[in-house]
């Protein structure tokens, strides 16, 4: 017979699982150091647990977690008063286990991982403010308003940075980022596409 729940009922554990990949990726592009990224994520979760009662609704959890992580990173930078160590992302990515995609054949998985590594390397060459917006928008699908809240800047600035970040990425990934759709086009004498 269930007659309600008492106020003394222990709360269930908060499930960070669905946010961990994104938090780790964001921490990695910020810190460019795997061990540091893991510490950032763990500290973020710890701080979030301590401040859970301040969360107003389920809808802003993701942006809130990324904001916490970024603030921890900024505080760490201030504490050290040094610029982040420039480490090749490829070396950081060693040991990172990507989720196996059992729906694809081994060749497709191998090719996919090559592409992913090239994209990681390209993003790693961007300035940190570009890396942030690319991760938050293209991978975490936060809205411009949510990204603006995380970065503490106007939404217009977010859009501007994203446009410039994408432009830079297109330069760094010329072959991969210019694959046309499967539909063939007619080309004019000068090689220009004809509508």
């Amino acid at each position, binding site marked *: 017979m269930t*007659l309600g729940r008492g*106020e003394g*009922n222990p709360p269930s*554990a908060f499930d960070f*699982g669905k946010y961990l990949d994104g938090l780790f990726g964001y921490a990695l592009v910020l810190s460019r150091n795997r061990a540091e990224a*893991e510490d950032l994520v763990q500290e973020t*979760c*710890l701080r979030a647990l301590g401040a859970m009662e301040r969360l107003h609704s389920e809808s802003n959890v993701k942006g809130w977690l990324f904001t916490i992580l970024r603030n921890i990173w900024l505080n760490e930078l201030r504490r050290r008063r040094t610029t982040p160590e420039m480490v090749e992302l490829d070396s950081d990515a060693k*040991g990172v286990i990507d989720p196996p995609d059992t729906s694809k054949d081994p060749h497709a998985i191998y090719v996919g991982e090559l592409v992913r590594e090239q994209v*990681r390397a390209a993003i790693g060459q961007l300035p940190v403010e570009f890396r942030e917006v690319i991760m938050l928008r293209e991978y975490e699908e936060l809205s411009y308003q949510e990204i603006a809240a995380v970065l503490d800047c106007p939404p217009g600035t977010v859009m501007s940075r994203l446009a410039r970040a994408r432009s830079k990425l297109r330069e760094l990934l010329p072959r991969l980022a210019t694959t046309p759709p499967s539909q063939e086009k007619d080309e004019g004498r000068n090689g220009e596409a004809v509508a």
Partner: protein
Amino acid sequence: MANAPGSEEFPPRRNNDNNGRTICDDFAVGILRYLDNDLKGNELDEFRSHLPSCADCRKHLEEEEALSRLLHQTRPLYSAPAALRARVSATSIQHSVPIPVAESPYEGVFQFLREHLTRPGKRLLSLRVLVPAALILAVCLALVPDTVRQVQAASYVQSAAEEHRKYVGGHLHLGLQSSSPQVVTAWFAGKVPFDFRLPVAESAPQNEPKYKLTGAALVTYKGSPAALVTYEGQAGQISLLVASAKSAAVAGGDEIQFGKLTFHYLTNAGYRVITWSNHGLAYALVSSVAGPAKASCLVCHQNMADRDKYQMHP
């Protein structure tokens, strides 16, 4: 082509403005919004109408679309290591268990022990006195918590019986008179510091209910608001006291396990009392009806599928 005054359509109907911006400059800005499906109505029409006349902008759009496809197919870009996942999960579980904050009645004793065992020069004398004391304390530690709980449970039973006596004697002021479990549930909302809900009937009553819900009263237990629900039937009157398990304990009497619950059958002041705790709430069902005490459980179970377990059979 000049823009109409006050117009804010996209893209502006001009080749360039005073700042030298062109339609293509504004088109570049709009691409992101277009890819986000954020352009609507006239803005979308203007955007699409520019494409056939500008190869550069078409190429720009195609490149942006290709980049979006590339980035999205590499999701997730990174995966959190399994060891990190395990650590975070352990941290989350650890922090979900409330740390007991109840004051220990033995803190003063422990402080006394610490002081005497660490004070130089007096250590030997202290050990002669304190070791036997520590042994006695260890025995007490094993017994006292249970004793304290028994005392608390007895206090709860006594309070429930007292409220029932007032109800039977007509001295209890019912804050609500209603036969509807939903109305009673709604009435308690915000009045008690816990989520209180009376069960509703699982099925249509086959016979006339043996006990009828009559009303509710807001009472206090150990200074905290508690819920009292009253019932009447041909066999007698029944009351149900519900309080937070933070202030009320249940223990003692004849313990009967039923499913995951432990019911405690007691008597107090001539009344039959059944207590149990569930989901952080302590319940005390008090009755003066004849027959098995569990028959009073019919106040809630008489309209449930398991009603037969509580029926009094001749």
